């Protein structure tokens, strides 16, 4: 079972519908006991970092997530979840979870697209990801597969954690992490076939990781 972490930030049900469609058992949960017995955690989110951290801190989810991440429980952050896994965010000048080193920054002003026209922020729509390393998470994907993004801020983790780059007036980090602890700036639950493939791959990884641990 995968736990979809509920911190009142919007898109848990979209993730749940995608997992249901794939036949992957999941629960939307904020109770640390439920997270504890999950094979893997999905940390989604839409909204602003400040409000999200207030909810996460006041409910004790921050401590539960730090403990589970440190114990090697597989975790997949999505969009806002991806951003607040780092140490801080320029959005609302917020201290965030610090599961991995790095910070979240805003697209700078004055960037131009390849056609010489100013880029638009938020970065909203479909874009490609240049994956840097092999990973079970994106096994089977094609290089021209596209993913759905909608964000004004992006993660800027420690360089060795960068796993995928996307271009929007500049290269930015769209995927980062290490094995078992991954973060995606895009929405796999809204990215059609390749997004659903990533969710399937994550569940398969969680099951295999769980079997090894036993």
């Amino acid at each position, binding site marked *: 079972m995968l736990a979809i972490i509920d911190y009142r930030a919007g898109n848990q049900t979209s993730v749940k*519908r995608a997992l249901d469609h794939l036949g992957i058992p999941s629960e939307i949960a904020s109770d640390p006991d439920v997270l504890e017995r999950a094979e893997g955690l999905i940390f989604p989110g839409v909204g602003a970092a400040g409000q999200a951290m207030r909810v996460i801190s006041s409910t004790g989810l921050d401590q539960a997530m730090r403990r589970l991440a440190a114990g090697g429980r597989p975790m997949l952050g999505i969009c806002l979840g991806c951003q607040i896994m780092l140490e801080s965010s320029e959005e609302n000048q917020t201290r965030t979870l610090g599961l991995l080193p790095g910070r979240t920054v805003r697209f700078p002003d004055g960037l131009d697209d390849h056609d010489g026209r100013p880029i638009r922020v938020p970065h909203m729509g479909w874009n490609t990801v240049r994956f840097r390393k092999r990973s079970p998470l994106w096994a089977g994907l094609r290089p021209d597969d596209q993913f759905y993004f909608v964000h004004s801020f992006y993660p800027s983790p420690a360089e060795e954690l960068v796993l995928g780059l996307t271009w929007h007036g500049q290269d930015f980090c769209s995927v980062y992490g290490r094995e078992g602890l991954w973060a995606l700036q895009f929405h796999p639950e809204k990215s059609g076939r390749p997004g659903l493939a990533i969710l399937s791959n994550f569940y398969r990884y969680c099951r295999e990781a769980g079997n090894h641990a036993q």
Partner: protein
Amino acid sequence: MLSKRVIPCLDVRDGLLTKGVRFRENLDLGDPVEAARRYYEEGADEIVFYDITASAEGRGIFLGVVERVAEAIFIPFSVGGGLSSVSQMRDVLLAGAEKISLNSAAVRDPRLIAQGAEAFGSQAVVLGLDARRVGPTAHIPSGYEVVINGGRVPTGLDALAWARKAEELGAGEICLNSIDADGTQDGYELDVTRMVAQNVRIPVIASGGAGRPEHLFQALSDGHASAVLVASIVHYNRHSIKDLKEFLRQRGLPVRMV
């Protein structure tokens, strides 16, 4: 690089498509969920639903449609038509839509845009703007006037000024529909599309007038639009979404092929 989006638009009344949608194999669909699923599989980048039901009862049926769509397709979709309060927006988003589109109600009460953006984020709030060419005047310097209630009621508002105000209030995107071009299939109204797209930083979706693949290309290149709304050109089996996107790709535009 961000892809240009092709977005089919479906009109729903009492839970059914107002006109059937015809697919390659001459299959006629009246169920919006099935039509959405087909367009999703063909490579639609998003789908827009307009609820043209008037009654409260019909609205309840429509929310059921939104829920079933959310279970069937895994791309973003938006919902418009008659939304006039934050609680109605919340109902639609909780049912599974990513975005809501505000049109006439936002003209009557612009605070709705700010309230929606505050409650759900700018990315969830699309301004639907219907514009009619009237020629430049002192009050309407852009030469395009905002019209509401399906184009029947002029507002005296300048379309460009309203687009900028909506951006300031927190709209995340503008769906710009030309009332003059709508239904003609003679092409999008490029002048107003370009003017708005060059003067706001949020994405502009061109709407109204698509009849041939070239029209999409024009709106996305000369018109500076980020996306195009399509209806008749895909509903009546003249072009599939896939063919339209292949055409755009061959013309050198970044598009997502599935």
